[in-house]
């Protein structure tokens, strides 16, 4: 019996592609803004694009901040994607925002020299720095699709993947039942779908 996957909707971007990717991998998907559905989910994807300040404000208004913390503490698998990979940390320099604090660390603007384009948009390599279930069958230095200006800076032990854009940043991180990728697995071709599929099979 395929598992029902819960996708958190906090009005931060378009979730259609995430939902379609989950369905394509053979699972049902519920897209929800209801705290109770988040709290009781069996497997959760926390996506999102946009700015940290507005996103945290919406999460609070909807009562999703507490629900996400409660969900994560229960030890069930959580996948953060893009903005969702950032606001699981303690703090974001974007809009100076206190975030969810599910993973220790902060989020900062990409460090790039003058004249380098920000956002970092397009396909780039991820160097796998630690073995993890989500890397199963994924070749090291595979390319994934990124669109972002800020990046997570977790405590060292949490990094699972690094990417170079005029300086290295943590593009994938993992800690206990949480894994998060700065890139969009749902928009990164076959290899992205593999990462997503690995998450959907993962038993932390």
């Amino acid at each position, binding site marked *: 019996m395929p598992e029902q996957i819960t996708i958190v909707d906090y009005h931060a971007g*378009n979730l*259609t592609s995430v939902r379609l990717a989950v369905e394509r991998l053979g699972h049902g998907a519920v897209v929800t803004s209801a705290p109770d559905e988040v709290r009781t989910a069996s497997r959760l994807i926390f996506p999102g694009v946009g700015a940290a300040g507005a996103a945290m404000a919406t999460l609070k208004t909807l009562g999703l901040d507490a629900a996400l913390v409660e969900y994560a503490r229960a030890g069930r698998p959580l996948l953060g994607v893009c903005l969702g990979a950032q606001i699981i940390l303690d703090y974001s320099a974007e809009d100076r925002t206190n975030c969810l604090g599910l993973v220790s660390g902060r989020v900062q603007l990409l460090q790039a020299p003058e004249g380098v384009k920000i956002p970092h948009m397009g*396909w780039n*390599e991820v160097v796998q720095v630690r073995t993890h279930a989500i890397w199963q069958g994924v070749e090291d230095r*595979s*390319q994934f699709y990124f669109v972002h200006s800020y990046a997570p800076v977790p405590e060292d032990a949490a990094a699972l993947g690094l990417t170079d854009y005029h300086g290295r940043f943590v593009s994938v991180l993992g800690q206990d039942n949480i894994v998060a990728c700065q890139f969009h697995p749902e928009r990164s071709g076959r*290899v992205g779908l593999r990462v997503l599929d690995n998450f959907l099979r993962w038993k932390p």
Partner: protein
Amino acid sequence: MLSKRVIVCLDVRDGKTTKGVKFQGNVDVGDPVEMAAEYYEGGVDELVFYDIGASPRHKEIMIDVVSAVAKRIAIPFAVGGGLRTTDDMRRVLLAGADKVSIDTAAVRNPALIVDGAARFGRQCIVLGMQAKRVGESARIPSGYEIYIEGARTPTSLDAVRWAREAEELGAGEICLNSIDADGTQEGYDRDVTRMVSGAVNIPVIASGGAGTPEHLRAVLTEGKADAALVASVVHFGTYTIAEIKRYLSDHGVPVRMNW
């Protein structure tokens, strides 16, 4: 290192992909959904669909195309053509598009860029620009003027100035088409691409004129483009995406080679 992107453009008229030369004489080249799936399997990095339909139902037909494409591919794609309001944008985004491309509507109503960026995020808003070489003047310092309405109507807007203004208003990316080069297959206009790309801090997609892989190499290096758009050269089977990317990779342009 960030890869340079190769993007395929599909002009969709009432559910069929068509291809014209210099905005005239379009011919049907296939089913956009099947073509999208083939290009996806063939290693394209991104797709753009322009609705050039004219039938009363063309908008609904396009939404059906977008929904069907979204179910088949797992790479980003943009949709443009006839999007005049943020509600128009919302419909194609909810159908599964990642980005929307606005061109004439952005010139007529620059607030659409602001509103679209505020509602969906900057990364969603691609500014389409049709630039024509007109010679430098006080009015057009870059020598390239923006045209609208399928490249038929001049606007008195300077291409570089408009690019900067659109970036400030909230555009997340620019797709820069050279009217002079479009459909010729004689190479991109590297001059306008280099000028616009150097003037803004958002990615610039070069469009118009691709005939050989060398044309892409030139615009992605000397032309400073972040991505290159192709249409006829792949629709008519002159080159495959894999052949183009192999050439780019062999000539030192970073591209995604495994898909």
